[in-house]
């Protein structure tokens, strides 16, 4: 990695009912984690069109996190299963275009798992930081 002070740009698309609530709980509990992730709220991870993620990488994102409810806990019954399937397929697409599939991550954080949200944040940021800037960055814009 060229610049030691380099900070990744990571976007998180998270569901309203579990992961967003869990992230709020982490806030209430004042769990401190690194600030390199920006979150976008959707009602369910089922809403996450793979094109959103490809668009994010096209825009130069260094990493993308999709986080929803645990299996069986989806507010809409099964949206997270469908999201997980799509992310699984999408990872193979990323590999094919020469992007490390670790840049895309799906996690399951419930509304009561504030501490886990903090751990996920640390872990995702650490993983993407180690991978360095996205090779697609220079093509962004």
């Amino acid at each position, binding site marked *: 990695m060229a610049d030691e002070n380099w900070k990744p*740009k990571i*976007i998180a*698309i998270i569901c*309203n*009912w*579990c992961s*967003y*609530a869990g*992230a*709020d709980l*982490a*806030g*209430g509990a*004042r*769990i*401190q*984690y690194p*600030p390199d992730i*920006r*979150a*976008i*709220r*959707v*009602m*369910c991870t*089922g*809403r*996450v*069109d*793979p*094109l*959103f993620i490809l*668009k*994010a990488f096209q*825009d*130069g*994102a260094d990493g993308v996190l999709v986080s929803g*409810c645990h299996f*069986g*806990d989806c*507010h*809409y*019954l*099964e*949206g997270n299963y*469908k*999201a997980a399937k*799509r992310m699984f397929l999408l990872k193979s697409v990323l590999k094919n275009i020469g992007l490390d599939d670790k840049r895309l991550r799906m996690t399951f954080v*419930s*509304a*009561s*798992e504030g501490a886990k949200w*903090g751990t996920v944040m640390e872990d995702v940021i650490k993983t993407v930081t180690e991978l360095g800037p996205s090779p697609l960055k220079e093509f*962004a*814009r």
Partner: protein
Amino acid sequence: MAEVKKNEEPRIGVFVCHCGTNIAGSIDVAAVKDYAKTLPNVAIADDYQYMCSTPGQNKIAEAIAEHNLTGVVVAACSPRLHEPTFRNATKAGGLNPFRFEMANIREQNSWVHMHQPEEATAKAKDAVRIAVAKASLLEDLIPKSVPVEKAAMVVGGGVGGMQAALDLASAGIKTYLVEKNPTIGGRMSQLDKTFPTLDCSQCILTPKMVDVYRHEGIELLTYTEVEAVEGYIGNFDVTLRKKARGVITPAEAEARGIVGGGCTGCGDCVDVCPVIKPNPFELGMAPRKAIYIYHPQVSPLIYTVDFDACVKCGLCVEACGDKKAIDLDMEDEFMTVKVGTAIIATGYDIFPIEKKFEWGYKNYDNVITSLEFERLICASGPTGGHLVRPSDGETPKKVAFVLCAGSRDNTGVGKPYCSRFCCMYSLKHAHQIIEKIPGAVPYIFYMDIRSFGKMYEEFYYRIQNEGAKFIRGRVANILEDPVTKNLHVNAEDTLLGRPLDIEVDMVVLAAAVEPSAETEKTRRLFGVSCSQDGWLLEAHPKLNPCGTTTAGVYLAGVCQGPKDIPDTVAQAEGAASAASIPIHRGEVELEPYFAQCIEEKCAGCGLCVNLCPYGALALVEKDGRTVMQVTEAKCKGCGTCGGFCPGGAIWMQHFATPQIVAQIDAFLLGGEQ
């Protein structure tokens, strides 16, 4: 589809909240405000100490009028907290409330980056930029009003469920009370006395059980389980399984044309039944027949055949005679009822304390749980209220009570939480043996005595003065004398700092409580979340303790977390009140996050139809083409269809593809690179 104003030039107002020092303590609010002014489409940016206050909300309404705003962004706390507040403020300013977008710079920023003010400020700027991008594309939406069925369901017939059902029915709402066991009453009917008043549990409970049974507004469905739940607030279709009881009520007999028939509760069938099984109500300490009632005060007083045990000899049918109440060929029945709201009151089970092997439960005869103690000390219990040692039937003189048995346990075997009522019932148990057995000495091994309720501390002092021995220390292990079956309780007295080995006649483990098996099953059917330890998650721990995140579903009693009888009844009354509000209003507004079909893009492939978990989508013929059509009342707005449509033909209102892509672009392409 919602009206989209074409060629409308977005003019967004941005309002940044200090939230006292909650936000301003780590984020440079003025810098965020100044930054917002530089963003495209932003007509005005302002900041205020507390945006949720009346002056703060007025700022929004005034700015909408003054700057002819098309959208509003508030950068403050979580939308899960204050989105409704600011939507109302937006509406008060004359704008459609769905033209509001919130940037969360508190829960997901200032509170989690407290010591990184520069990074937190940069993150807040990004959040505002992302929110402005979305607000620029928001459209007018109209919430959909749906009628509410004037009926409610309570799942669980313990004291909490009974109270909730009584309150709902007394408020004029048809209430279905569903109980899996053959009788209502729940855990409370197994208890002998209640703390701190020492009321007889059955004496105060049975009148309520009778009230429930007689209430014309309550349809009591015992020996029944919830099988499936469909629909949404106002319109839940609940499928119930009425388990085959083998016995019919007088009303059912009349329906079958048997005059004067049906179960009268005489018990003639029991006398002839040859099959003997352990009685689960007595925790296996007393026998019952294959046809049984739990105890004499059951409600309804109808016998039940245990088909797992029944040998179908038919002796009971003969004994029943002309009443013809017994039908050994009965099968489970299914019924579907429509309700507007539902309350879950599925209670608790006892943690399997044998997992804490060092205390020897199920291994040593004279180590029992507190619930077993309740049955043994209860006059209607298997021993007629005489406390005896299981090993030899002798009356114990020295009894050790082990508190926090499996509660407040961080070893990974037990439960990390406090089960809340064990301290108090153990004090009551100590009182009961002092009262009933002359010369008896209770030894109470405790970590802390949590006597937090009204008159609880006074009760604690009373038991101290009655001569109970209190030893502060966890019990390390219990060893049995193989000859006498007496027990050696090994613990450290942490107040005196010395190890103890006390020989006692009996040990009572105040075992932890855990969510009942039905709690997990029921919450999944109703789509209610739970916390890590399985207790059901309330919508807000302080401000909405009876509600859940599933609209129209409420919680009462221990299924939400350990609580004693007064707290359970209080929460049940709260839940009943909350559950009656939509029903009395008669209609509810659904958030209009519906999917819409963009027909000119739709190829009619139908992939979305199978993706929808609610059956809200269908293919229809329109102008000679096959296109998808949405039934709005069925659509819950998850967007699973919109995330998959290969043609981009699904417009998810408020979470539309252009809106989300604008957020992604705003973060990654906007701002400083």
